[in-house]
């Protein structure tokens, strides 16, 4: 069962565990996998009739897969038989620490070249009066070589960006964590800013909606 709040000791243990976990995992080039994702979008765009349809189809698949994989990852031992579930808590603020832990475990110490640690916005401070998380993409392997000739952003449907599928990947991870912890929230994530739309960094916003009974 998840604790109510992560202690400093547990955070320290997790800090050690993430380094060992990344060292032990089998790895490949990040850009190779980013390219694979872009190729899938290229192919899905052909198959489903438009760039927007291709991105949305891939996003749907990714969200479902990431929910399932997250619960597996949570139970995988990372430090002397201790798994990630020992570092979960029901405190929404702690989720920023857990997401950072996931990024480190998957990408190693260079993860911050890609994204920032998520920022937690409590319900009382958010515009929607619901808990939110904001994640910034400071450099993006998914769009660094996507020119306008390849994908013209002005032709995408409203609400669809090149990174929509990645936003849904993180949404799936967060939903998987919420479900595992037993928090009754439905996570909705969207990419509100994208390099390809003229911004200096990408921005993903996640909102927690109470689940309908």
């Amino acid at each position, binding site marked *: 069962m998840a604790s109510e709040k992560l202690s400093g000791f547990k955070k320290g243990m997790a800090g050690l565990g993430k380094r060992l976990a990344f060292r032990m995992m089998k790895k*490949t*080039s990040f850009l190779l996998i980013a*390219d694979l994702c872009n190729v899938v979008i290229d192919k899905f765009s052909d198959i489903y009739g438009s760039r927007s349809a291709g991105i949305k189809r891939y996003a749907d698949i990714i969200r479902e897969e990431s929910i399932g994989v997250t619960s597996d990852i949570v139970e995988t031992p990372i430090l002397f038989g201790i798994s990630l579930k020992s570092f979960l808590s029901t405190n929404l603020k702690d989720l920023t620490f857990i997401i950072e832990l996931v990024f480190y475990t998957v990408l190693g110490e260079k993860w911050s070249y890609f994204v920032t640690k998520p920022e937690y916005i409590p319900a009382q401070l958010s515009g929607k009066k619901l808990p939110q998380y904001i994640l910034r993409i400071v450099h993006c*392997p998914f769009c660094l070589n996507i*020119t306008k000739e390849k994908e013209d952003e002005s032709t995408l449907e409203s609400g669809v960006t090149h990174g929509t599928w990645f936003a849904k*990947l993180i949404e799936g991870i967060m939903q998987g964590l919420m479900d595992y912890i037993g928090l009754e929230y439905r996570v909705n994530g969207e990419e509100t800013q994208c390099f390809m*739309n003229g911004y200096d960094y990408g921005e993903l916003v996640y909102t927690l909606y109470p689940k309908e009974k």
Partner: protein
Amino acid sequence: MDSRKKENFSQDSNLISRGDPQTFFRMKLSTVFLRIVYPGVLTAFLTKYDFEAAKKHVWDLGYRVSKYVFNYFKTKSNEFEKIIDEIGEKVWGTKFKIQFNKERSVYLVSPKTCPLCEDMPPLDMKGLHNCFPFEGFLIGYFELLKAHNLFDYKEMSVKVLQSKGSGADKCLYEVKIVI
């Protein structure tokens, strides 16, 4: 107008600030990530198409990826075995064991670990392997080496003989090249 899109913006003007390809190329990603982004794609192809057409799409994933990779990574050697070594180490993130079978005049290539098979759910489907895109990748990459006068050959074929993802003890590829 979608509020997410800036007006009067030239889409390609910030390509450089999106990140350094070499930095991302050198960054290592756990193959666990592939469990999220890859198996569902295989299922989508197999659901939408008949088996042979789905196989072609999976093969084509690797073929098309090679075109992306060639933009930022070109092998330095001009010897076939060393090129395979470089691809294994720099791109695939593993070491390849390469043996030449004199009887059949083919190379047998086996990765120490396979990013498309490790950590993946098993794929129990005769004739299709998780690492099937590797066939397309090698064909596509060598075509580009030839087109850029970096390595010349007359013919080439690649076949995944077995894979860990389908229950074998190791992945094994047969590469035939006529120089």
